[in-house]
């Protein structure tokens, strides 16, 4: 597996067990959209930028289908808390906590993410 890392001015970085993983340059994550990062342990993180500019990273694999698709969902917000709706069966996941808003028993992992 080759993980390309391009060090530029401002990078989006995700917390992993072994430090901050540079993902891509900041400009590639546009408001309302997401990119997917492959983590060293083989997991996938979807990095979203909300309208205000803040970044959130959650697991990309939709727990209801096992498919890596959450980054391709549409975003919204409930009471100011942003969420993404899975493009497959439309369950919503809170971007900050990873909790599924439509099924209390389900959640996706959450990753710490910074820009620097």
């Amino acid at each position, binding site marked *: *597996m080759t993980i390309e890392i391009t060090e530029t001015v401002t990078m989006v970085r995700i917390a992993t067990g072994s430090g901050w993983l*540079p993902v891509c340059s900041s400009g590639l994550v546009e408001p309302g959209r997401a990119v*997917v*990062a492959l983590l060293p342990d083989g997991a996938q993180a979807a990095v979203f930028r909300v309208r205000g500019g803040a970044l959130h990273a959650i697991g990309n694999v939709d*727990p209801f289908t096992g498919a890596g698709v959450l980054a391709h969902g*549409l975003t919204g917000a409930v009471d100011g808390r942003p969420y993404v709706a899975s*493009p497959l069966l439309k369950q919503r996941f809170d971007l900050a906590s990873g909790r599924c808003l439509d099924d209390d028993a389900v959640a996706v*992992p959450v990753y*710490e993410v910074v820009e620097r």
Partner: protein
Amino acid sequence: MAANPGMAAPTGTEAEAGTEAEAEAEAVAGAASARRTIVLVGHGMVGQHFLEALADRGVTARDRVVVFCEEPRPAYDRVHLTSYFSEGRTPEQLSMVEDGFMARHGVELHVGDPAVAVDRDARTVTARSGLTVGYDTLVLATGSYPFVPPVDGKDAEGCFVYRTIEDLLAIEAYARRPETVTGAVVGGGLLGLEAAGALKGLGLDTHVVEFAPRLMPVQVDDGGGEALRRTVEGLGVTVHTGVGTQRIDSDTAGRVSSMALSDGSALGAQLVVFSAGVRPRDDLARACGLPVGERGGIVVDGRCRTADAAVFAIGECALAADGRVYGLVAPGNEMAETAARTIAGGADSEGEQGAFTGADLSTKLKLLGVDVASFGDAHGAADGCLDVLYSDSRSGVYRKLVMGADGTLLGGILVGDAESYGILRPLTGSVPPVAAEHLVLPAGAGAPVQMGPGALPDEAVICSCHNVTKGRIRGAVTEHSCTSVPEVKKCTKAGTGCGSCEKVLGRLVDAELEANGVAVDKGLCRCFAHTRAELYEIVLALRIGSYRELLDGHGREDARGGEGCEVCKPAVASILASLATAIGASVHVLDGEQAALQDTNDRFLANMQKNGSYSVVPRIPGGEITPEKLIVIGEVARDFGLYTKITGGQRIDLFGARVEQLPLIWSRLVDAGFESGHAYGKALRTVKSCVGQTWCRFGVRDSVRMAIDLELRYRGLRAPHKLKSAVSGCARECAEAQSKDFGVIATASGWNLYVGGNGGATPRHADLLAKDLSDAELVRLIDRFLMFYVRTADRLERTSVWLERIEGGLDHVRDVVVRDSLGICDSLEELMAAHVAGYRDEWADTLDDPERLRRFVSFVNAPDVPDPTVRFVPERGQIKPEPAATTLVALSETVTV
């Protein structure tokens, strides 16, 4: 099914029973040994109402209930049988039985197994299968059978009755034979006109033959009959009144060929439906010695008991205590209630209280699209009564009210416009709050009087099928916190019978909600208080080019400046895409902010499948493809290992592509001359065609050419939902154009345009919008139709639903797009012209743009790595997604450094 003591033979038929409930009930019965067996013979609408009434009173929990049903399916809505054709309802949608009802209440239902004998001495019922069940109480709800007049030839092939779903299916099959051109209905009553509507809907030249001097002789008077006749004839049904059917003639094969009428004329017809009334099915009762009436009907008392106290009869098979046989569902339901009450025992199980002594025969129907209602003393039988009459032959409206000498409303007849039935019927028996003339005049004539449901007293019965008063409906809102019509229906059952009270019910519920301060919100979502159609107008009028601008300027207060949501984003994206060229916005759906609004399919210009892989559908206009292009598709599929399947829209779907493969696949397809098929978008999908005149010996026009022209014209048009089309080269309709959003059928004199058709879960036959059109007229009309739909439909509303929802329905749409009643056709045509001129292939554009292409990777930090969650296994020589090992992750810790 659990063992059932008392059953002499295994059923061998489909039996639905709740084994658990049953076992429990058995145990209770064993302990108390008071468990009775109630046998119901007949599972029609009234039979099912009886079961529900038993369940409501707790009888099903206490006693064993066994039901014998002759038809192959449980009770269904016979009143709305015609909707099977007119609204494309399925037999399942017509069912009256809630899912799991039988199991929940432990009712043993034997479908397709009619009772054939009753032994009153031994108290047993024997079914056709040989199953014999002992009873403590027997309830006969055997209904009625269609009366077929004893004319010669009535048994010829092609003669039908109109009573069951099976009858309908048989009529449908026979009508579809190419030889069947003309259909005749014997009987111009309520059911006869229903049947005529069905034949008309099947495309037959339709005749109605009625012996009486007018249509619907029981319900309406001469004036009403005349109004009805004019309207029905205006719809293309030929009406013969005052003539009888003397003989049915057949051809050498024994099939109906014509009818001899009593005036000496002959009517050529290949299909005949007898609808000359019904007769009570009392044969089972006769055979076991129960008294029946002179003209049929099992004699019952006010408690619906027959001469044998252990046997009841309800519904159309019963001769009620007032000496009448009731052929309507509402009185049948009342009888069911009475019988259930009596069997349950209790305060109202004896004597006058809750007895059935006669019923209101009020009816409101929509026959062939014509409203007909009759209520109370419709024919003015009371002494000294006076008529107040309004008749307008031009519009086919006839309204008559029968008033008592003291100003009491006694009854009435409404033809052509029965809107006021919901108000007038409950007012019957009282002095209306406004002068009678205001009640018959059309709105806008004379003094303006708006009589809403607010004018009704709380005791007024709104739903006569279930006897629900206005007070109970208000109570459902105020006490049971119902906030919508469906909730009120569930709570009170109002509006779940014949449906004639639905409009009044809706107004009542809205008024009551408003009175209670509950706002009825028609907004698109949490972000917008506007409907999709309103947002379209805002975008067009103010030339708003972005979602943000629309949300911040026109969203709900608390949504402005916010994130938006997954409901409005694609809806607004679709509006912006539809209007892009007209308002000077960017055309490409992947440009700038637009990209963040799109459903995933539109983001990658491909259809996401269950495992996160995508499918690719190149456009194949009209389904016509050269061998060279076919080979390219085959080569691409082979080289990328894609699963290949022919679609229903005459093109080829390539499944199993990973995101990063999409540009590679498309560069090969675009090089070979293919373009996006928009299978991923809410947009025009395909225009299917038959080979038409060019090859087919029946074809009358070049359907392939027309299909290609239409597909190329409307490709890429973003709409509230997907659009499908087809062109058939002759009336044989091999392209199935009548199941499409817009379908075209060639005739000898031009093109016929059908709109609003649909397949899928709720199939709907398309309606004819205009006929015998030239090529140019056809295209112009489709331009207008599509743009009017794009402009006014709700989000995710197919043309079929839109056409039924918008006020005025098909007639309104025809007025707007054919007669230009709103004066907007020029602008609709301009909008379409702008779309056609601005069309570009999204895939060719994407391949030319490195910025867009950069998004087609699985991982931003590892563009060469394919998504490992996308996996396939082999099947039948191709691939299929590996079944997901779904892992629901428990709440996990945030990973921190």
